[in-house]
């Protein structure tokens, strides 16, 4: 009996002297730790260990060298440094061959191994494990064979805000199972709070209402899942958590991204691409001012005031594009052939940002796209922007550009070669001005500061769990919804890739049981399990269709008669198939 149990301890990976074994050990596996004392094993092991050491003590004088080697080996093995260990082992095994103690030990180990295998045959196959190889097995089971593992999870750090909430708790667990690095933002690190979280989660103390505390929390994070909500219905609380919290966090995250971009000297995937910067006379080179009309009205042209415009560098150091258009159907273009830095193409970017000042007119941005060699094949795409009085930054996503000829394919940013800013007096809206100040909508002034391209992201950066408002008692609902809505808007404006999930009333039950409905426009009426919401959050992290989308989600239901006009998308969550992509691909972006 005792011999068998002892045999289990120098386990699979741990036979220092076994000749066949040495090769394997060099390659990898976990080094030995002293066998864990375990019930019946202990007595025999101590005895077994005692006898050789006793003999060694006697021999110590003449065999000083061997004990020394033995000691060094013991120190070295934990390092698991392939080369040293094997060379020392080689010496040691040579010594062992002539050493009766070594021979005895070896023969016993061989016998133990044989007996272990023999007795294993007679057993119902169950896996026997000691604590030693636990780690190795975990690595193996957690490897690609593990059904939960997600590609890309290893390099992703997710900050979970509201990690102790009903959804947050499950989100954290799911992330851990999939191999993400998780940071959890908590307000206080009390024991009961920390006990709710998995031990390997990095707990950071902070409050979403306190911007200063978020700076450290956000460090090193790639993505944020925000499932915090106010515990009370006091307006102050609601505003602080659901609105200001989102604002502070998006700001902290953007600041962090900017810092990264700066650190990498504009080479980071997060940094914008400078297309034009207007800070000297030279920077105006290449820009052309042109005039034109949409139709030729010969008679009218004789009587109107015509049009004029110039693009000049003023003495104050501003690049000003100004002029007037009195002609009916007239317009003025300011355009330039784009020359991008080598190796840069606009397809890595998702839009343009203009930093401009002026008198608040609206303009049309026109992009010409097509093969550079043959400009006659170029196609025109346009998008309308409006500016404010004074300086402002205007973002124009490439997705908002429409082809001038409707049958042309959608804009491919890769092919863009010319940028045009057009002013036309049509569809101008008077700006807010002090009463009495007269404005002529046909004149314009636009001061350019810079034009940059916004970097694109395939994935969402910030997932916000909001709510639909159903299931909240009527007295509170309006307040809550107002705060949530404000938070959602803040996120949409932040420039981060966002996913806003508005689940129906949350139910605490296991997920993956019922089909889900994804919808937009506040029509859903059912509840949803917290686990399903958590699953959507985790799935959305790496799903490009989830980027910049807001959607409602709830359990499947049969629509009331008369209301079934809407096409709703239902999907049964399943671990094997990805239900999120098809469900979300039909939903609108940027709503």
């Amino acid at each position, binding site marked *: 009996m005792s011999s068998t149990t002892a045999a289990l301890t120098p386990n699979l990976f741990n036979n220092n002297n076994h000749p066949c074994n040495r090769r394997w050990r060099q390659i990898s596996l976990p080094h030995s730790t002293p066998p864990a004392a375990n019930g019946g094993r202990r007595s025999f092991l101590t005895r077994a260990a005692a006898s050789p050491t006793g003999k060694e003590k006697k021999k110590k004088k003449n065999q000083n060298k061997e004990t020394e080697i033995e000691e060094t080996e013991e120190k070295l093995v934990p390092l698991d440094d392939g080369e040293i260990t094997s060379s020392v082992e080689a010496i040691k095994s040579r010594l062992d061959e002539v050493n009766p103690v070594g021979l005895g030990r070896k023969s016993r180990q061989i016998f133990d191994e044989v007996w272990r295998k023999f007795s294993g045959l*007679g057993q119902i196959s*169950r896996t026997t494990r000691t604590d030693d190889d636990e780690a190795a097995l975990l690595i193996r089971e957690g490897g690609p064979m593990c059904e939960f593992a997600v590609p890309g999870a290893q390099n992703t750090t997710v900050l979970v805000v509201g990690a102790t909430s009903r959804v947050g708790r499950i989100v954290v667990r799911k992330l851990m199972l999939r191999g993400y690095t998780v940071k959890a933002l908590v307000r206080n690190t009390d024991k009961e709070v920390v006990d709710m979280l*998995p031990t390997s989660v990095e707990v950071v103390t902070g409050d979403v209402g306190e911007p200063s505390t978020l700076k450290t929390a956000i460090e090193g994070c790639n993505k944020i899942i925000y499932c915090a909500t106010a515990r009370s219905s006091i307006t102050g609380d609601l505003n602080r958590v659901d609105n200001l919290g989102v604002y502070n966090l998006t700001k902290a995250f953007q600041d962090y991204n900017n810092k990264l971009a700066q650190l990498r000297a504009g080479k980071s995937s997060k940094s914008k691409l400078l297309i034009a910067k207007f800070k000297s006379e030279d920077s105006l080179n290449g820009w052309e001012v042109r005039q034109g009309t949409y139709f030729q009205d010969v008679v009218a042209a004789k009587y109107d005031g015509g049009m004029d415009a110039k693009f000049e560098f003023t003495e104050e150091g501003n690049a000003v594009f100004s002029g007037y258009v009195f002609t009916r159907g007239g317009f003025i273009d300011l355009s330039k052939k784009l020359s991008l830095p080598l190796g840069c193409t606009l397809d890595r970017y998702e839009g343009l940002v203009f930093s401009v000042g002026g008198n608040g007119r609206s303009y049309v941005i026109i992009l010409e796209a097509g093969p550079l060699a043959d400009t006659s094949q170029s196609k025109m795409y346009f998008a309308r922007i409006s500016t404010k009085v004074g300086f402002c930054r205007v973002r124009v996503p490439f997705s908002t550009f429409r082809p001038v000829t409707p049958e042309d394919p959608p804009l491919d940013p890769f092919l863009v070669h010319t940028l045009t800013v057009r002013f036309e007096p049509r569809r101008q809206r008077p700006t807010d001005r002090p009463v009495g100040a007269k404005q002529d909508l046909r004149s314009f002034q636009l001061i350019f500061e810079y034009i940059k391209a916004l970097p694109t992201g395939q994935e969402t950066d910030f997932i916000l769990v909001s709510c639909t408002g159903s299931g909240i008692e009527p007295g509170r609902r309006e307040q809550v919804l107002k705060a949530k809505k404000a938070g959602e808007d803040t996120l949409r404006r932040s420039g981060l890739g966002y996913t806003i999930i508005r689940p129906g009333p949350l139910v605490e039950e296991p997920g993956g049981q019922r089909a889900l409905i994804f919808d937009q426009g506040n029509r859903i009426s059912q509840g949803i399990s917290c686990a399903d919401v958590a699953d959507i959050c985790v799935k959305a992290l790496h799903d490009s269709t989830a980027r910049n989308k807001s959607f409602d989600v709830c359990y499947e239901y049969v629509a009331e008669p008369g209301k079934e006009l809407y096409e709703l998308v239902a999907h049964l969550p399943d671990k094997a198939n990805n239900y999120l992509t098809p469900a979300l691909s039909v939903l609108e972006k940027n709503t």
Partner: protein
Amino acid sequence: MACTFHARLSAPLKPNLYSQTSLCWRRALIADAIASTCSTTQGRGNAAILTCNAQAAPAAVNLAPGTPVRPTSILVVGATGTLGRQVVRRALDEGYDVRCLVRARPAPADFLRDWGATVVNADLSKPETIPATLVGIHTVIDCATGRPEEPIKTVDWEGKVALIQCAKAMGIQKYVFFSIHNCDKHPEVPLMEIKYCTEKFLRDSGLNHVTIRLCGFMQGLIGQYAVPILEEKSVWGTDAPTRIAYMDTQDIARLTFIALRNENINGKLLTFAGPRAWTTQEVITLCERLAGQDANVTTVPVSILRFTRQLTRLFEWTSDVADRLAFSEVLSSDTVFSVPMSDTYTLLGVDPKEVSSLEKYLQDYFANILKKLKDLKAQSKQSDIYF
């Protein structure tokens, strides 16, 4: 008295089982004590529980009903085992709050806590440690089996009896028990006999339960065959014609939770088997093929195993060894550990294609491990430069 008792129970956990606990304590335990088939240690267990409850019942009536137990709270017994850990993972992923009953060990099972489960220390062989772990639990999933080196009776029988009685007494609403396929046909194997008796005991206890009989785990084959083949060590196999339908523990865990939530399966006996039954020789051949190297196979005739068992049975001090070799009796018979699964699949509403086969499983394993070995070799080559 009642208050102090409850306070003690609920101190480390959430106090939300007041009503069920206190009302049915005494009645259930006494009834069980009479009805039960096991006598000695169970008496000890009862005594321990009863002493702290002697005056509990009258006072308990006054207690207002506490928070209802959430259906998502489950207790996994044997969570560190091959099957147990997959059950825990699956449960966590499906959004359950998982509590794991593990023995206090010098090296605690940290991986469970890393995944987000709560770990409570208790020992089935010490019945007085059990009740506290069941507070606030809706479902118990029992995948515990004693370690091979410890006497089979303490955990697998006495411990289980104590656990079932406790579960009954504390109003646990569902109990899932994992047993072994064919355990009713082989009373000569102690573990199988005990499993069979536990099945019966569970049925008689009146608990709402599901019993799941299993054939074999694919994960077990890794340590038994795959690793030795890769390490170029000798692989031991028998020439037994016994076939086992190995199943992936991840599939078992998945199906278990489907069965658990299906109210039609209450009180039923399910058997989970893999898609195909394999003999030892077939498994070794498959591993050799996938590893791309020949195994050093030592085939032991079953007759020798049986002989050893007979021999070790003669002496009292080797009776443990004899117990452990008992499976050789089963091996020498022509048993097939497999069942047709189509009925189970329809009952559970599962697509048979989603259950992984042994070929696929081992293929993934070897592809993965060979790639890792390659990487490690490349790394060790780099380090050569320094010496």
